[in-house]
C-alpha cells in the first residue's frame, strides 16, 4: 500500500496574506475530488425540452457523458458515434457523422424537435468541416432544429471554456420572435428563488419571467426569444447573453450574482434603467438580509466556516460578507479567482490575513488527510461540496453556482440554509458523489 508519511503538506495551502491574485497556486498535475455535483455539458443541454443529444467522440470521452445521461435517467435522449483511430487517418469524419445521425434517427419512433450534436477536441484539430455537416443535416431533416455543441476540454483554460460555450449554444436554437413584455434570465441551472426581489419586481411590473430550468416543452423554451431584455447572473453565461443580443437584437444585461450590497443596488439600478422603471426602495429586503446574517452568526457561535468555488463564483466576496457580519470564516477552497473578486481579496488580506486558501486540483490534495474539521471536533460548516469533502465535515450547505440565491433575498435564504446546515450532519459521500446535483440524478 501507499506510504502517506512521505508526503509533505508544504507548498500546498497558503494564508491569504501571502497569496497572489488571481492564481495563488502553481499549476501542474491535477487531482479530481469526488465531489460531482457541478453540472456538465450533458446536464446543461438536457435543459432544452424535447431535444436529443448525439456525442461524436472517442470511447474515453464518450464514457463519462453516456453514463451522465444514464444516471439522470435520460438515456433515451442520448446517442453516440464513436471515433476510431482510422477515422483520424481516413479523412471520413464528416461522412461518419452524417451516417451516424442517419442510423440513430432511423432507430427512433419519432424525431426530436431539436438535436444537439456535440463534437470534440479531435474535430477541432483535424479541421472537420462542421459547416458542411450541419448544412447536409438541415437539408435532410428540415423538421429538426440542429445546433452545434462542443466537448472540447482542451479549451478549458482558453477565453471560451466549454461550459461558457455550452451556455451560448443552449440558446442558439431560439428563433426570432415578436417582442412582448417578457424578461429572460439566461444560464442558470436552477430557477432563481421566486421570493427574490428581482423576480418579484419584474412580475409586479407586468413582465413574464423566462428561465430555461422552468421550461417543460420546446415551445416554452422558444418563448425566450420574445423577451425584451435578457439578463445573466452567472458569469459563465455572459457570452451567451452577448451572442443573443447580437443575433436576435435582444438587449443583454449582466447583473452578476454577488455578495456586495452596493453592487446589488447598482445591479437593480441598471435593471430599472434598462426597463425605464423607477428604482424601488430595497431597504426592507436589505434589512432582512442583514438581520438573517446576524441571527445566523449568533446561532453558529464561532463555528468555523469554509467556502468553495463550486458553491458560488465569488467565494472570496462571500467570505468577506460573512466575516463582516461576525462569522468565523477559516478557509476558501479554490484554484484561482475571477477579476471581480479582487476587491474582496484585498479586503481579506487586510482584515482576515490568516484565512487559508486551499487548492482543489493540486496533486497532493488527493493524498493529504481531509481533517480540517477535526481541529474543532468536527464542528465546521462548509458551504459547497468540495469544502465539505476536503474539510471532512458533515455539516454543509449543499449548493452549486449560488444555489438560486440571488440578491438581498438570496443572502437571507443562504443565511437560513447555513443555520439549518449547522444543526444537522449530512451523509456527505452519498450526496456529493451524485453527478449534476438537482438534475434528477441519483
Amino acid at each position, binding site marked *: 500500500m501507499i506510504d502517506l508519511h512521505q*508526503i509533505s503538506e508544504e507548498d500546498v495551502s497558503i494564508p491569504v496574506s501571502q497569496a497572489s491574485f488571481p492564481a495563488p497556486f502553481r499549476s501542474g498535475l491535477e487531482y*479530481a475530488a469526488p465531489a460531482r455535483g457541478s453540472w456538465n455539458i450533458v446536464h446543461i443541454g438536457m435543459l432544452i425540452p424535447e431535444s436529443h443529444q448525439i456525442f461524436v467522440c472517442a470511447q474515453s470521452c464518450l464514457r463519462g457523458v453516456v*453514463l451522465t445521461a444514464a444516471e439522470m435517467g435520460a438515456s433515451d435522449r442520448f446517442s453516440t458515434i464513436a471515433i476510431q483511430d482510422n477515422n483520424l487517418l481516413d479523412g471520413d469524419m464528416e461522412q461518419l457523422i452524417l451516417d451516424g445521425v442517419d442510423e440513430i434517427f432511423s432507430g427512433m419512433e419519432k424525431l426530436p424537435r431539436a438535436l444537439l450534436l456535440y463534437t470534440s477536441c479531435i474535430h477541432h484539430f483535424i479541421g472537420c468541416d462542421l459547416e458542411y455537416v450541419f448544412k447536409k443535416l438541415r437539408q435532410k431533416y428540415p423538421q429538426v432544429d440542429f445546433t452545434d455543441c462542443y466537448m472540447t476540454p482542451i479549451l*478549458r483554460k482558453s477565453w471560451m471554456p466549454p461550459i461558457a460555450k455550452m451556455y451560448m449554444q443552449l440558446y442558439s436554437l431560439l428563433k426570432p420572435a415578436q417582442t412582448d413584455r417578457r424578461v429572460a434570465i439566461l444560464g442558470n441551472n436552477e430557477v432563481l428563488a421566486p421570493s427574490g426581489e428581482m423576480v418579484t419586481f419584474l412580475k409586479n411590473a407586468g413582465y413574464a419571467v423566462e428561465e430555461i430550468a422552468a421550461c417543460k416543452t420546446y415551445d416554452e423554451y422558444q418563448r425566450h426569444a420574445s423577451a425584451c431584455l435578457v439578463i445573466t447572473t452567472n458569469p459563465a453565461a455572459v457570452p451567451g447573453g452577448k451572442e443573443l443580443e447580437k443575433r436576435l437584437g435582444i438587449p443583454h444585461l449582466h447583473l452578476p450574482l454577488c455578495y456586495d450590497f452596493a453592487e446589488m443596488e447598482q445591479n437593480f439600478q441598471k435593471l430599472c434603467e434598462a426597463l425605464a422603471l423607477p428604482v424601488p426602495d430595497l431597504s426592507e429586503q436589505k434589512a432582512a438580509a442583514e438581520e438573517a446574517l446576524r441571527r445566523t452568526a449568533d446561532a453558529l457561535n464561532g463555528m468555523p466556516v469554509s467556502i468553495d468555488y463550486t458553491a458560488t463564483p465569488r467565494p472570496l466576496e462571500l467570505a468577506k460578507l460573512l466575516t463582516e457580519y461576525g462569522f468565523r470564516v477559516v478557509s476558501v477552497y479554490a484554484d484561482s479567482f475571477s477579476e471581480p473578486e479582487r476587491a474582496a481579496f484585498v479586503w481579506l488580506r487586510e482584515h482576515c490575513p490568516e484565512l487559508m486558501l486551499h487548492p482543489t486540483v493540486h496533486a497532493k490534495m488527493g493524498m493529504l488527510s481531509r481533517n480540517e474539521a477535526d481541529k474543532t471536533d468536527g464542528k465546521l460548516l462548509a458551504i459547497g461540496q468540495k469544502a465539505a469533502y476536503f474539510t471532512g465535515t458533515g455539516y454543509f450547505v449543499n449548493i452549486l453556482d449560488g444555489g438560486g440565491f440571488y440578491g438581498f433575498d438570496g443572502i437571507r435564504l443562504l443565511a437560513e440554509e447555513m443555520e439549518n446546515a449547522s444543526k444537522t450532519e449530512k451523509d456527505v459521500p452519498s450526496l456529493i458523489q451524485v453527478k449534476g446535483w438537482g438534475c434528477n440524478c441519483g
Partner: protein
Amino acid sequence: MQLRMKQSNRILSTYTADVSGVCSALYEMGGMTVMHDASGCNSTYNTHDEPRWYNMPSMVYISGLTETEAILGDDEKLARDLVDGINGLHPRFCAVAGTPIPTMMGIDLSGIARLVERRTGTPCFGFKTTGMQSYVVGASMALEAVARRFCPETPKKVRSGKPSVNLLGVTPLDFSVTGTVEALRSLLTENGYPVCSCWAMGSSWEELMQAGNADVNLVVSSAGLTLAKFFREKYGTPYVVGIPMGEALTGEYLAEIDNAAETGENRYPVKGGKIPTNGKAALIIGEAVWAASMRRAYELSTGKPAKILCPLELDGETLAPEDLRITGEREIGAEMAKSDLVIADPIYEYVLPKGISFVRFPHEGYSGRIWRKEIPVFVGKDWDTWWETTNF
C-alpha cells in the same frame, strides 16, 4: 476472430476505455498514474470507473493538456510536471497513459517516460493507450509492464500440498467491490490453495513481487492473460483461465488447477461446452472470461447451451468460433432476437426485443456505478444462490 466494430449507438453505453484500464490496474501499487489529457478522463475515471476513489487514496492525475501545448508540441511541460509530481509525492513508479489528442499528436510517451526516469531515478512507463480501445487492453498492458519491470527471479520451490496460485486480471471494472474478490480468495484458501498474490486488488507490493512463487496462475479476466503469458515465459508457471462460478464448475475448476500444476500445461475449464447450432438458446453478453465462465456454470446448472457475445477486444482464449465478436446495438439486438434468454448488463435491456427473457448482471466496466448494489458475489456457491433468484 477479430472484433467487428459498429460506431453508432442510439441508446447503448460504451465500455470503460483503455486509459482507465491502466489506472484501475495500477491503482493499489503505490505508483503515480497520469492520464495525458486535457480534462474529462479523470472525472470519468473516478466517477464511473473507480469505486475505490473516495476511500482509498491513490496518485491518479491528469496532465491538464492545453490547446497551446498540443499545437506547439510542448512535451517539456508534461515532463516537468511529472518530475514535480514524483519529487512531491515519492511514488514507487510513474506511469503516463495516452488519450485521443496525444494519439493524434503522435506524442512519444515512452520517450518522455525515459526522460523523466533519467531526471528522477524513479521507474517510469509510457503506455500507448489511445482512448479508442476498451479497458481490457489498457489493464492488460499495465499489469504485464509492471511485472516485466519489477518481478524478481525466484528460486523454484518444491511444492508440498495443494498448488499455490496468483489471481490475474482482477480490477473493480470486472469484479466491482461487492465481495467477489474476497469470496474468490476464501474459496481457494478454504480448499487448500494458498493465494500468493492478486493482480491487482488487495495485495501488497511485496505480495505482488512474490508472484513467481505460485504454482499456477488463475486468469480470471481477459486483462490477466498477457500477464499470465509473461509469467509462463519468466517462471514457467502454467495458467488456468476462468472464474469458478457455482459449486459444480468450482469442482471442475479446482481439479484443473491440480492438473495444471501436475502437467505444467495451461487449462481451460470454461472453454467449449455446449454451443447452440440451431434453435433458440441463451445469449451471454460481456467480457470474455466472465461470459465463458457464466456459460459453463449455466450449462452445468440447466443443461442448456448458450452463445457468447463479447463486445471487447480480448477473447481470453476462451471463446468458441461460433461465439460473436460484435458491437453496435442493431447487430446486438438482432442477436438477442435469435435467443430465448439474455444474460447481460441492465443497459442492454434497452434494446431487448419483446418476448425475450432477460437476466440482469450489472457490469462496472459498462454501466459503472448505477446498479453496483445489484452486482452479486459470483463465485462458488454464491453464484448458485444468485442464479436461484433469477428463476431460470
